[in-house]
């Protein structure tokens, strides 16, 4: 039997953060993870994260993972991989299966940070090879560098569905459609907009009727559902796909908490059965904590803060920091966590109903919620959209950020102070003074939602210059021609690449500036390389 002051189960964002916090205060910490690689799902997250600076906003998930891991190891945390915790007994004793050996450990405190597992839905053909979880698609593409197939149907329009849809396109797959039985897109509008402008259609109020094939997927039939969730006869559509990707939600993996005797409660908006915790993450069993998705499905950024909160509480309980110091850190982490939980998609309490307006009072874009893109007629009411007068003056940044999500890198990076989000990071960004915009494009490449564009309607006679964030290969070269597409992916006109800027700071996101006919300045939002042959 080996004793540690803190045993952490799960080396994901929550577990590693708890480990870092406790080890930094001087506690002896071990982390067990059943996988061969630490970092949980962070290493599959290649998009830039939302939030503020202290939440590592605009950093890609895998880089955050690398840093957490280095920090933990640097602080002397022992990370044991391929180690499956199979039992929790009284007095915080655990059994761990490492290879084929069973080992016994005891901790003064335990943090359960086991994360979540993917939900599935069943339909005729759902067990065919080619039907995979969205997590599997990420593992294949982003860890092992393998495309799961060629043409993909994404089932589920939550953040996982739209983010993985984007990653599939980055990996070189085609996304045939994103479907969701709900009437509205579940994920952030900005994530949906990224793939909508690449031409991915969204079918809301649709479900999958069947996966076709005998020994592998060779197509899918989707069908519309009515308000009672019943299929509408005659609305079936066949999609030619070889992969069906399921992104239909996550469930907390609270089995170990149950085994430990923690009181569990069913919380539909937290994703299922979760341990009842106090504000420090302590369960109903003294010295056993839960942090991250196991305590309720949220984003990785929230998981990291929950881990820190638990680690800090443990350090205080065992006398490694003073009460005052503990309270100072706790207040800081708590405030930070509450910021992330605010806004339209947040977890700041209770059930959420589909809102009709932003916190500021603008009507939410209905096309964004049902088709994945903004209709330019709905845009004008938002505080980040410069009016015609400002656009006539020259180059402006257009902030197409229309939902209250916790994020403020645009405010942070603008060297001229043109953009204001304010203290509440779920506020919509406001364009305070286009007059000073130098066109540096930092806001464009930093926005995790890729919702900022530079528009110069005075670029040349009858031509405008539009700068967009671009994260695909091959990267178009200046002078090359292609098509300017609107927010729905429809081709508007031929466009020419004026410049492509990329540097270390942009972390893979290029700033592509294209020349488009002047009348399309406020519509052109994507560049499709190649000839003008494609239909609109």
């Amino acid at each position, binding site marked *: 039997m080996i004793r540690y002051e803190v045993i952490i189960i799960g080396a994901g964002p929550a577990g590693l953060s708890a480990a870092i916090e406790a080890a930094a205060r001087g506690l002896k910490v071990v982390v067990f993870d*059943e*996988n*061969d690689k630490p970092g949980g799902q962070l290493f599959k997250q*290649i998009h830039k994260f939302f939030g503020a600076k202290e939440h590592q906003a605009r950093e*890609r998930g*895998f880089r955050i993972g690398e840093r957490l891991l280095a920090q933990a190891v640097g602080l002397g945390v022992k990370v044991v991989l391929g180690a499956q915790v199979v039992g929790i007994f009284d007095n915080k004793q655990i059994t761990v299966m490492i290879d084929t050996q069973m080992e016994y450990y005891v901790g003064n405190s335990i943090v359960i940070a086991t994360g979540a*597992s*993917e939900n599935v839905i069943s339909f005729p053909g759902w*067990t*065919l*090879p*080619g*039907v*995979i*979880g969205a*997590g*599997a698609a990420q*593992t*294949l*593409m*982003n860890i*092992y*560098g*393998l*495309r*799961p*197939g060629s043409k993909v149907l994404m089932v589920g329009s939550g953040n996982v569905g739209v983010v993985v849809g984007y990653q599939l396109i*980055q*990996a*070189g797959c085609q996304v045939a459609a994103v479907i969701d039985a709900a009437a509205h897109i579940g994920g952030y509008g900005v994530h949906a907009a990224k793939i909508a402008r690449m031409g991915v259609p969204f079918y809301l109020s649709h479900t999958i009727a069947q996966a076709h094939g*005998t*020994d*592998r997927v060779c197509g899918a039939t989707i069908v519309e559902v009515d308000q009672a969730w019943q299929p509408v006869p005659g609305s079936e559509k066949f999609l030619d796909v070889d992969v069906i990707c399921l992104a239909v939600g996550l469930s907390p993996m609270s089995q170990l908490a149950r085994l430990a005797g923690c009181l569990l409660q069913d919380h539909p908006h937290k994703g299922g059965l979760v341990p009842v915790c106090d504000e420090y993450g302590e369960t109903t069993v003294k010295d056993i904590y839960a942090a991250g998705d196991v305590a309720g499905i949220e984003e990785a950024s929230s998981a990291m803060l929950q881990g820190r909160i638990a680690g800090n509480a443990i350090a205080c309980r065992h006398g490694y920091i003073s009460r005052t110091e503990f309270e100072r850190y706790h207040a800081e982490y708590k405030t930070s966590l509450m910021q992330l939980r605010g806004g339209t998609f947040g977890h700041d309490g209770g059930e959420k109903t589909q809102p009709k307006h932003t916190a500021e009072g603008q009507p939410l874009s209905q096309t964004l919620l049902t088709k994945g893109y903004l209709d330019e007629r709905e845009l004008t009411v938002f505080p980040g959209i410069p009016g015609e007068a400002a656009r006539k003056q020259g180059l402006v940044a257009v902030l197409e950020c229309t939902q209250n999500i916790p994020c403020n890198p645009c405010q942070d990076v603008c060297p001229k102070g043109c953009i204001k989000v304010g203290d509440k990071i779920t506020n919509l960004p406001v364009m305070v003074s286009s007059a000073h915009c130098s066109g540096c494009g930092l806001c464009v490449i930093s926005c995790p939602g890729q919702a900022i564009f530079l528009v110069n309607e005075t670029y040349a006679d009858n031509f405008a210059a539009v700068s967009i964030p671009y*994260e*695909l*290969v*091959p*990267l178009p070269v200046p002078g090359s021609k292609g098509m300017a597409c609107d927010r729905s992916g429809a081709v508007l006109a031929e466009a020419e690449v004026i410049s492509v800027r990329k540097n270390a700071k942009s*972390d*893979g996101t290029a700033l592509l500036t294209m020349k488009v006919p002047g009348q399309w300045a406020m519509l052109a939002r994507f560049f499709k390389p190649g000839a003008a042959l494609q239909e609109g």
Partner: protein
Amino acid sequence: MYRIENHPILPEFHRGKRVAFLFDGKEYEGFEGEPIAIALRDNGVMVHHYTAKRAEPRGIFCAIGRCNDCVMIVDGAPNIRTCVTPLQAGMKVETQYGTSNEGVTGRQ
């Protein structure tokens, strides 16, 4: 044909050396250390086993060793989760029928 050679965000993928292995008696190639399932998928193999009761095909589903849909017979041992088992040179990988390594007859 499914390998990503040029990714807009990720640095080059660390792949082991190219090794040969056997799948149902035929020789295939993959990268040492990557999950067996990855090497198979790259070679177009998608069916890993057939279920015991209804002989339905199963392949990769979760890719993290949780769902057991990708189990195969590896070097004679049945029920090996190929999505989390590293490929080694000369491995003998076989389609599994049912829940054991007794072959097609085992399920009838």
